[in-house]
């Protein structure tokens, strides 16, 4: 019944014992705490049969057929390992979705290593799988993504800074590219997510940040590629399995970049490991 807690000298992450999901994140240096729930969801991809538009979701076009998300699982089976080098909680959501939440001893970031796939499509529904971080941060419809890995731009839901927007796609119309990081913030707290690859993301609800992880679609979008986005491999003929990492940092807005800039550099320019058998004198 007690919450699962992983902690180092910088961060503390708490998990709800009933659901196995993250429930809060604290920065122990700055003494800030936010409510933080994270889970996995999927949008049902549009098949093009829609009164507003015949555009199916495909390689070029992200177009869910409604704004309603399906939850992969409301709870996760969780295992907790605590050692002097790393503390981790392994979460199992479904046969095709799992995650390891890690906190290394000297790290100022919480690592979420997600594994998604093969995405099941035997129900005839194409799926666009996301993870969503729901927080207590008061975002007032603003969020921030980087456009090219350098410049972080302010985004506002259903708004464009240079023209009067008539929003026709309530989800896809609010998605933006994330190349290395995205964040949400208010006066006190900034939650930054550093990604290990280019992804799409948005903040549809205040205080939330969602990031696209995987897509498996059943129809071509008629934009030129000529085939549905339905990748498989020799090892996984039933659909691609994808694994990636998100790094979360919680800081005061004024000093958040001091953490997320070096963090993103370490992700982009990762060290190169080589091995030799035996003792290398």
């Amino acid at each position, binding site marked *: 019944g007690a919450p*699962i807690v992983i902690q180092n000298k910088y961060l503390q992450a708490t998990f709800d*014992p009933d659901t196995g999901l993250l429930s809060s994140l604290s920065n122990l240096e700055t003494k800030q705490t936010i409510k933080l729930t994270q889970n996995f969801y999927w949008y049902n991809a549009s098949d093009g049969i829609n009164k507003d538009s015949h555009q199916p979701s495909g*390689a*070029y076009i992200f177009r869910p057929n409604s704004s309603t998300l399906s939850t992969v699982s409301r709870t996760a089976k*969780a*295992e*907790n*390992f*605590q*050692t*002097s*080098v*790393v503390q*981790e909680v*392994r979460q*199992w959501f479904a*046969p095709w979705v*799992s*995650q*390891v939440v890690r906190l*290394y*001893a*000297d*790290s100022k970031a919480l690592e979420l290593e997600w*594994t998604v796939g093969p995405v099941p499509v035997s129900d005839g529904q194409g799926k666009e799988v996301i993870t969503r971080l729901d927080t207590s941060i008061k975002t007032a419809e603003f969020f921030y993504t980087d456009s090219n890995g350098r410049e972080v731009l302010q985004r506002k839901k259903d708004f464009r800074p240079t023209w009067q927007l008539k929003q026709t796609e309530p989800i896809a119309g609010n998605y933006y590219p994330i190349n290395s990081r995205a964040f949400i913030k208010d006066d006190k707290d900034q939650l930054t997510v550093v990604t290990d690859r280019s992804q799409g993301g948005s903040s549809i609800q205040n205080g939330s940040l969602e990031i696209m992880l995987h897509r498996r679609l059943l129809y071509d979008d008629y*934009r*030129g*590629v*000529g*085939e549905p*986005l339905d*990748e498989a491999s020799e*090892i996984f003929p039933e659909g691609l*399995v994808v*694994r990636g990492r998100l790094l979360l940092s919680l800081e005061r807005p004024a000093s958040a970049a001091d953490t997320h800039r*070096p963090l993103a*550099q*370490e992700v982009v*320019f*990762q*060290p*190169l*490991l*080589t*091995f*030799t*058998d*035996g*003792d*290398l*004198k």
Partner: protein
Amino acid sequence: KGDSQTLRKAMAVAQHHDAVSGTEKQHVANDYARRLANGWQHCQVLVSNSLASLSGSAAKRIYCDHLNISVCPLTESSRQFSVSVYNPLAQPLTWPVRLPVNGTAYRVTDAEGKPVDSQVLPVSRATQEVRRNRGFALNELVFQVRAPPLGYSTYAASLIQDRPPPPPPRH
């Protein structure tokens, strides 16, 4: 003889907007992957030559491209191995390393022979499912490495215990 030209050319091909955004046909995606993998193979020789020159050791260097799914035939089977860490950043690096192993306790030392705190954890269930029949590691050896700016460091790992039961999960 290694070269970086092969990877350079593969990267040039992959600047096409379809490669950048993933809007290519599947057989084209497969071809991009093949070109990039071939380029990396050539680069590995180049990196090995450079590290041999810098370290003064001609020992054969192995690359483990599937560490993200806990697959590395060398660390899974060897009782003693070394890890060299090259840091491409212009600032000192501290980085967690996770290596697939089959032993349950290892002695890890830095280049000066000082012991480094290390732990062995069982491979996660998800990883076992992802890698299917490609890897056999039961555990992962985890430790923090440090490397100087634009430089490298070397760590040695040797097996000190084989096959006691892995630690039970706390929950």
